[in-house]
């Protein structure tokens, strides 16, 4: 008799998949969980979509996907940035097919319907054929705008649900991380204008995100860099450094190097220990803008290493975001953070991003490989659980969140999963 194995497909009670210090492997592998995530997290919740600096001029646009849905982020002739569904309201053709560009209008190549870059329907060829029917609904046939859209520090977030908490409520303590990044710019503006590296990962999107705030893996996953290329900026051995991990609440979390950098009171440790003489214009602009003391502190503290739930990682002088494709495939996007008017820094930042990040990066290529093997390993159904208890007994709550002074503690992951389970169970995040 031939035994045919049925695909394993079980409805999951998501709240049962997450416990305080362990999660069920199905959170990474189940297609049902993935579909629920796309609905609850990516369509109903706040997600990062683009940065305003990507569309600096009127008419500029970029195309993105939110939870699989194609969107255009366009700056209209009125200067307003809008997140619009990239779908002709006539028959549903994907309207805008370039990655980015500049256009005063979007004309559908199928039947010629034309939309302004503010989304309004401005032209319908051979209109008479509709009689009076079109005029009655014309106002409603503009491109659909994301029901909610807000920005913080130029980071544009959207939600495809009409109601829910405000962006500021969602970001909570994580606004400080965005502020910390902006503090490194004399104008408090940044530019994500150098383009995004796109890296196809054969693993679940949450693995890509969580790994960014995993302070435990570097000594092992990235040993080849520290052995052969250069030592880590500060030690990855937890007992040797005052580096914290922090659950910021709402699923946001970080590895905070600031206490160690402040202890050493040394600028640019986070930037290859660049001597300040090598960036005189940038340093002068920082001092002119913030005063010498604040400029010094910003250059000591450095950029954030902070994960903002669900899809934004402030990766120091990079920004990373993810597009989940299915339970086992994810595209990671990485862009360097450029500082307006600081070319001496910016070209160096490009080279640093290429060195560390993306499909050929000295660091991230190996994270991609380990993520893929993780996804393969989870195909074994026994044991059922993934262990996240490291540092559970030494977490401390303070006004900044839940902190652990051992950088290898799994405090960020515990915060992520607690929030994730709440959102999937239906509490709006």
């Amino acid at each position, binding site marked *: 008799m031939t035994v045919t194995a049925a695909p394993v497909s079980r409805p999951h009670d998501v709240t049962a998949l997450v416990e305080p210090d362990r999660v069920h492997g199905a959170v990474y592998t189940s297609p049902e969980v993935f579909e629920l995530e796309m609905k609850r997290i990516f369509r109903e919740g706040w997600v990062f979509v683009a940065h305003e600096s990507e569309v600096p001029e009127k008419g500029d646009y970029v195309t993105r996907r939110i939870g699989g849905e194609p969107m255009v982020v366009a700056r209209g002739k009125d200067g307003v940035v809008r997140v619009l569904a990239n779908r002709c309201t006539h028959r549903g053709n994907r309207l805008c097919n370039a990655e980015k560009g500049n256009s005063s209008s979007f004309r559908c190549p199928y039947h010629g319907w034309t939309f302004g870059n503010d989304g309004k329907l401005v032209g319908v060829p051979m209109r008479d054929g509709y009689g009076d029917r079109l005029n009655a609904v014309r106002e409603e046939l503009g491109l659909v705008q994301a029901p909610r859209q807000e920005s913080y520090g130029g980071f544009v977030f959207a939600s495809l649900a009409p109601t829910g908490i405000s962006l500021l409520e969602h970001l909570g303590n994580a606004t400080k991380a965005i502020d910390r990044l902006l503090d490194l710019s004399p104008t408090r503006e940044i530019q994500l204008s150098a*383009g995004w590296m796109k890296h196809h990962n054969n693993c679940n999107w949450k693995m890509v995100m969580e790994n960014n705030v995993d302070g435990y893996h570097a000594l092992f996953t990235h040993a*080849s860099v520290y052995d*052969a*290329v250069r030592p880590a900026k500060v030690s990855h051995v937890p007992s040797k450094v005052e580096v914290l991990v922090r659950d910021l609440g709402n699923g946001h979390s970080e590895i905070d190097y600031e206490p160690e950098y402040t202890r050493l009171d040394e600028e640019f440790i986070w930037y290859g220990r660049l001597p300040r003489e090598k960036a005189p214009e940038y340093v002068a602009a920082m001092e002119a803008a913030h005063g010498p003391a604040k400029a010094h502190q910003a250059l000591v503290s450095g950029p954030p290493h902070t994960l903002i739930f669900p899809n934004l990682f402030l990766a120091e002088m990079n920004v990373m975001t993810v597009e989940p494709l299915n339970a086992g495939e994810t*595209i990671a996007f990485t862009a360097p953070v450029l500082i307006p008017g600081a070319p001496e820094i910016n070209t160096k930042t490009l080279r640093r991003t290429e060195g560390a990040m993306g*499909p050929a990066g*000295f660091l991230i290529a190996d994270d991609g490989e380990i993520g893929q093997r993780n996804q393969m390993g989870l195909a074994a159904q026994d044991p059922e659980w993934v262990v996240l208890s490291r540092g559970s007994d030494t977490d401390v709550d303070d006004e900044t969140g839940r902190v652990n002074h051992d950088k290898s503690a799994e405090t960020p992951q515990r915060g992520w999963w607690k929030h994730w389970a709440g959102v999937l169970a239906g509490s709006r995040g």
Partner: protein
Amino acid sequence: MAEPGTVQEVVRVQPADVAVDPAVAGLIYLEARLADEARYSEWESLWADDGLYWVPMHPGDDPEVTLSYIYDNRRRIKSRVAQLNTGTRHSQTPPSVMRRTISNLEVVARDEDTTTVASNFALYEYRYAMTVWAGRYVHRVQLTDAGPLLVAKTVHLVNAGGALPTMSFLI
């Protein structure tokens, strides 16, 4: 528009210059084979002191203002090879099994001692599954007393505009 049946005047382009010096072609093929066979240090020895290994995201990108996938100066080429040689570069442990073919070699520039050759390539990489990579190489090779050296290699991937799989081998 020309009337039907008339012959339009066209500017004829010249056939490609395929007179590639065997020493130059030999270096290009050797470079490919050493990369395929994960012979990292031998591969590194082909590079000139001011070598540049570049994989842009779009043709025509300016690397001063645009991010590339790889933009290795000679020092970073050395680092890349050193990392691969550790044996714990996980994304190349074990090394991918690879073979690439190079064709359509054309000389696109030449001066006294340096020749720039463009070519097409197809690379078959087997790791957990087969991945096919393809694109256009531009090799700049300098003939020196010590033999031919690689001054620059640019790789225009046909899929550079899309999401790339992990690419930590020598492309």
